[in-house]
């Protein structure tokens, strides 16, 4: 094992120098380190943070691949190259190499920018602060390309990643210390800084913005417009996509959020691996369903009329809310981030429920941008410590009561 020995020698060489964290990050990526336990438990379980993070990434890979096909599919569909899918999930119209290549060349740069910029900052901070490079960004870096519109300019993404990693995480002390989900901080930054690139009907299909510019410059072409289902509903228009399309994911939207089927499979994998919290996923769905039912009830009891601007989204059947927009993706991959979620099991139920509940509420009532998952999760990230505080207080009170019973 020449490589192993050479790397070990290099490790000893770098030990104590500024560059040690950077070298160790690459070294431990190749080899599980030779570190042994000291007093305390002499043996340790097999899991470490790298393995945990890697499992989450594995759960997202199907969404990423689907996103690549879907980016090309939506583009080709709009420009009239191909027909809409007809025969379910395995339609050949969708799983075509043409589609994939368009998406591949569009999305791989997003992934590279996300990881390149984000990990660059992580390495920089690790070297400056002299701690090991932490694994948190491995998941964030994969989440980011999946939650942005496919046409987002790369420089915007880079700026947002810098903001999200530095302000969202490093200023708090790095992985494990942050209050807000870094990936959502990045997305929120994009959303508030460059709203025209994050909403409307021009950003969700590859090439739409470019085509609009060409038309404005006098080219004789058909406009490409791809609106998300939520956008359509918010404007009170009829949705042209079938429920099956929504579930399988043949709809416009952020790169990785469209296929509820693959997200559910990823979620089940995470629950099975005991990495993702089923409590949060389940309670979040329950919360969304409750809110959806309330809105359906408002509509069916005739409290609002069809002319109301909320009618379109309020009358959406409650369970459709689970299939459209970023709800499923947010619930499975972002609300469950253990650092920013509630940390107690009881707290997770409350936290998840409120995320689902608020997501649908914001989705319906936000006039400018008909999606609420991002804001609901960020809001609950802020409240998670408070929820935990009250859950833990329950345990503390029990102890106090026991003491009082003794004294009395």
């Amino acid at each position, binding site marked *: 094992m020449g490589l*192993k020995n050479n790397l070990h020698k290099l490790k000893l060489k770098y030990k104590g120098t500024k560059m040690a964290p950077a070298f160790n990050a690459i070294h431990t990526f190749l080899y599980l380190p030779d*570190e042994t336990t000291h007093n305390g438990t002499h*043996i340790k*379980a097999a899991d470490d943070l790298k*393995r945990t993070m890697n499992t989450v990434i594995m759960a997202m890979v199907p969404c990423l691949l689907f996103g690549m096909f879907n980016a090309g599919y939506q583009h080709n569909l709009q420009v009239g190259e191909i027909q809409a899918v007809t025969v379910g999930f395995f339609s050949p119209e969708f799983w075509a190499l043409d589609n994939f290549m368009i998406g591949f060349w569009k999305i791989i740069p997003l992934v590279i920018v996300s990881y390149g910029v984000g990990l660059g900052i992580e390495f920089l901070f690790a070297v400056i602060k002299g701690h090991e490079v932490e694994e948190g960004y491995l998941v964030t870096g994969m989440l980011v390309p999946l939650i942005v519109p496919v046409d987002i300019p790369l420089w915007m993404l880079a700026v947002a990643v810098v903001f999200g990693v530095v302000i969202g995480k490093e200023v708090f002390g790095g992985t494990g210390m942050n209050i807000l989900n870094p990936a959502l901080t990045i997305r929120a930054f994009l959303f508030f800084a460059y709203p025209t690139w994050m909403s409307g009907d021009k950003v969700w299909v590859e090439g739409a913005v470019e085509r609009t510019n060409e038309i404005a410059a006098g080219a004789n072409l058909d406009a490409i417009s791809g609106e998300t289902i939520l956008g359509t509903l918010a404007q009170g228009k009829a949705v042209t996509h079938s429920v099956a399309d929504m579930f399988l994911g043949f709809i416009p939207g952020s790169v990785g959020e469209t296929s509820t089927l693959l997200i559910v499979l990823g979620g089940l994998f995470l629950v099975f691996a005991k990495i993702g919290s089923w409590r949060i996923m389940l309670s979040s769905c329950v919360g969304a369903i409750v809110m959806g039912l309330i809105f359906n009830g408002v509509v069916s009891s005739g409290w609002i009329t069809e002319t109301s601007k909320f009618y379109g989204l309020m009358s959406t059947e409650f369970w459709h809310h689970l299939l459209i927009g970023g709800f499923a993706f947010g619930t499975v991959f972002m609300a469950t981030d253990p650092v920013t979620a509630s940390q107690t099991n009881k707290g997770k139920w409350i936290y998840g429920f409120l995320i689902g509940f608020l997501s649908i509420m914001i989705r319906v009532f936000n006039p400018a941008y008909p999606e609420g998952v991002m804001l609901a999760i960020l809001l609950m990230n802020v409240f998670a410590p408070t929820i935990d505080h009250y859950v833990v207080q329950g345990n503390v009170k029990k102890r106090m009561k*026991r003491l009082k019973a003794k004294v009395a």
Partner: protein
Amino acid sequence: MSNDIRIKKGLDIKLIGEADKTVEQAIISNYYTIRPEDFHGVIPKLVAKEGTSVKAGDTLFFDKSQESVMFASPVSGKVIEVQRGPKRRIDAIKIEADKSQVYADLAAFDLNSATAESVKAHLLASGCWPFVKQRPYDVIANPNKPPKAIFISGYASAPLAADLDFTLKGKEAELQAAVTALGKLTEGAVHISVGTSSSPLAGLTGVTTHKVSGPHPSGNVGTLINKVNPVNKGEVVWTVNAQDLVIIGELLLTGKFNAERIVALVGSSVEKPRYFKTIIGSEISTLIYDKGVSKGGNDRVISGNVLSGKQIKPDGNLDYYSNVVSVIPEGDDYELFGWNKPVFNKISTSRAMTFSWLSKSKKYDLNTNTNGEHRAFVTTGVYEEVFPLDIYPMQILKACMYKDLDEMEALGMYEVAPEDFALTEFVCVSKQPHQKIIREGLDLMLKEIG
């Protein structure tokens, strides 16, 4: 109310190298060493200076802050060396044993007419008191503060633990004498947990027995306390290891301080794991070099179990409280892509490409590799699955780390000992040293609150 205790949260760690149920007389050790660090928080004041001849049961030193607590020599012989560390701290007292053992005559004790005071005085003077520990703080019991109850675990659930049903067999008389004496020291009950009804402890009278079942830490005394009568602020409970009851019992019945103990030699590096009859403080080499561990092997010798024991050198000594010596391979080697490849030969509570969930009864050969680097706390809900106490483990650990005494107290710090956090430390994805964090937290509380 049933006295049975069944826990569901926990983890049985099944390892290769369980001891055969045969007892051998260990080779008589020439030298015995007592290390004051075995007694947490004790500042020793030496009585037997270098060159003194002592009998088994004679006082070696006492505790400066609690002068009535005497520490006895396990053997008769001559104190040949007092090893000192920085600031003249006593690190170890080395005794060269006599060829034939002489016991200090402490006289048999009449239990029937004994009072709490006389029992206490006898145990203190004879050197048996250090076997009695207390919670809060997991230190030797303060003899001046009577406990609300006394807890003894008669069921060892830790990985490769010595089977107490086997090692205590035939010692019923000593056990009974010891628990009768201890019963006089508390107004409450003496609670004993047993794994099976055939345990030598199951038939004792004057005690409350609890049958415990479920995965480790069902046999930890901390679990028993938490389920039966948790410690509140201002209260004290005492705990005694079941094997030490034998020494206390023999002292009461015969007047001899006989530090003999049956010890299991276990672990995957041991050629023939089995039980030995040996004496506290004896050299480990007397156990491990005959059909034990191959010389020059890259192994770790632990006095105690693999979760909470102390690492010792192969020429080290059996510590004061352990009845297990574990030897496992060191894991100081790299593993290519060890962090992402599927893992079949290590234990995990997750299923993140780890497959120990497939075969529940498989025994593993684990080494001392940490399987990853130290990180901040990230994952949640993992500790709760292996932690049966009604306490929030991560929250209390964090309270210890930022040294918030009020919060530590509120979250239940009076109830815990480091060993209660051994399993959470084992499964910790961030590889945090939980037992050390708890120990330092307890020390801080002891110092600040007392």
